[in-house]
């Protein structure tokens, strides 16, 4: 085999990435750092100067900080249960994975149908006599309800992706490790924390990075449930680009999301690092 062959085979994919990813990406960087053809940081100062920036930033962070850990715990629990099943395993996996097949906007709309003034929740509460007339849950007076609804929708929508990765990872751990731990005195919980979790680190890395990146890009669900009442970074990027027609500030927002993504990915990689020679 000629030595150049592997590189030749990789060339089309590399070219595709260069042309359709790195080039536009470079353009966005330039966009964020120029205004009227001159190099400047004004886009960033405009962005941070706007009254919505701080709440968009912190809303995004808080959403991630609440949704991802809850999903991690749920995904680990569900994966452990699925792992133990002898029959009906794939059936259950499919059921768990249904929300994955639904677009995030559709997911947002489903939860809107539950929470809106004429939605299912109000119908049920009214029928049970808890409220005498439908309540407005998703109004600007109660942003925390919108926040909660977004959390719920996100957890419902994207827990399965973590679970699928973790189930696959658990399948890679030979069962002898668990048996050895059992013989050497570990309780069920100790086997989970001392054997399964450490051996699952590579899968946890993948699942967490994927999920954290998705969380920083949360957009459609928020729009569906709260419009612009609950600002998030991605929503603001959209606003500046299309409503306010200011591409520079929109690019600056994109850079903030990118920065956060890179930073948190590095943190996850660092925290769940598996030393060389310690892999399965």
């Amino acid at each position, binding site marked *: 085999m000629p030595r150049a062959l592997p590189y030749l085979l990789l060339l089309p994919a590399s070219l595709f990435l260069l042309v359709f990813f790195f080039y536009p990406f470079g353009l966005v960087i330039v966009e964020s750092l120029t205004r009227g053809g001159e190099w400047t940081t004004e886009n960033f100062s405009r962005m941070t100067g706007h009254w919505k920036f701080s709440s968009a930033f912190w809303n995004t962070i808080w959403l991630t900080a609440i949704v991802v850990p809850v999903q991690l715990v749920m995904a680990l629990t569900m994966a452990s249960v699925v792992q133990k099943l002898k029959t009906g395993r794939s059936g259950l996996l499919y059921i768990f994975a249904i929300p994955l097949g639904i677009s995030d906007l559709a997911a947002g709309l489903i939860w809107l149908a539950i929470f809106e003034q004429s939605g299912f929740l109000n119908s049920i509460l009214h029928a049970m006599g808890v409220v005498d007339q439908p309540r407005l849950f998703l109004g600007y007076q109660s942003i925390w309800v919108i926040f909660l609804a977004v959390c719920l929708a996100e957890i419902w929508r994207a827990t399965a992706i973590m679970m699928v990765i973790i189930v696959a990872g658990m399948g890679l751990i030979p069962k002898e490790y668990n048996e050895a731990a*059992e013989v*050497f005195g570990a309780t069920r919980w100790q086997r989970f924390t001392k054997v399964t979790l450490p051996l699952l680190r590579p899968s946890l890395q993948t699942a967490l990075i994927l999920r954290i990146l998705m969380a920083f890009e949360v957009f459609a669900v928020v729009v569906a449930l709260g419009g612009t009442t609950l600002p998030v970074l991605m929503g603001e990027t959209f606003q500046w680009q299309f409503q306010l027609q200011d591409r520079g500030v929109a690019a600056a927002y994109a850079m903030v999301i990118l920065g956060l993504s890179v930073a948190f990915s590095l943190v996850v990689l660092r925290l769940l690092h598996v*030393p060389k020679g310690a892999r399965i």
Partner: protein
Amino acid sequence: MAEIAIKGVAKQFGDFTALHSVDLTIADQEFMVLLGASGCGKTTLLRIIAGLETPSQGEVWIGDRRVDHLPPRERGIAMVFQNYAVFPHLTVFENIAFGLRMAKLPQAEVTRRVTRTAELMHIEQLLKRYSGELSGGQRQRVAVARALAMEPDVILMDEPLSNLDALLRLEMRAELKGVLAESKTTTIYVTHDQVEAMSLADRISVMNGGYIVQADRPTQVYRNPAARFVGSFIGNPPMNFLPAKGAGDGRWHVAGQVFDGPKVAAAEFAIRPEDLHPSEHGLDAEVRVVEPLGPHTLVTAEVAGQPFRAVLESDRAISPGDVIPLAPIPDRIRWFDPDTHKAIQ
């Protein structure tokens, strides 16, 4: 004190019966080997003693406690697995210390025991490494050290040497025997390798099809097989069997020769290949293959149409096609019941 008693233990997996009501007692500090071909139930029996499988019926006693309802960690056992199961995410030190940490021993005691067993297994220079940086033989040593560090009443070993190459296996076998004799634990050791079984065991339990066919000292198992299966399984090459025709009064016709035997209705003649020597009168063996092995020569022949093997002195010139009379040593002849396949005594 850790005498192990297995009382009427049976195990079914669905329709398949892996163990048929097995009874076995293993004395304190005894080295018991469970020997059999794959699928004979030896590993299932070991896993039932360990608590990794639950018996469908029967009782398991360790010392004076009935343990078959207890989880593995409450049985006072340690185990060495076939694939070692050395935790990849822990250093060698932490692997050996694993059971001690679970038992919440003080750090000083953990360090003392890990250091002592690591020295015993000659791996003290590897304590900081991960299992990915070890060879198969070294991992094996870690797995044994981890079991010894528990100072358990009972050590269970599931084909611990089967993944090592031949030379290493020989070395580890001798070492294991020494280390385990010194540790004064009761050991149950599963293997399909009869040489391993003969060399290590105080007693061997030969298993076949979910039954223990014979449980006895290695020489007994070899010299006096309790059943045809044991004779045909143990020994390399295994025992020769020939049909015998009763001539009345305990005399039997075997391939044209007359031998004294048991006074029963029907019997099968058996002799080990090394208990034959060329003589003027004997079983006429038509030589098919001659394999010189150095100290002796392995001859594959036919006697009365039956395959027949003999291990002979290597200084005799034998070639295929020769017919040589082979005389069995009279007190090494064994007789088996052709219906029950049990030894006739």
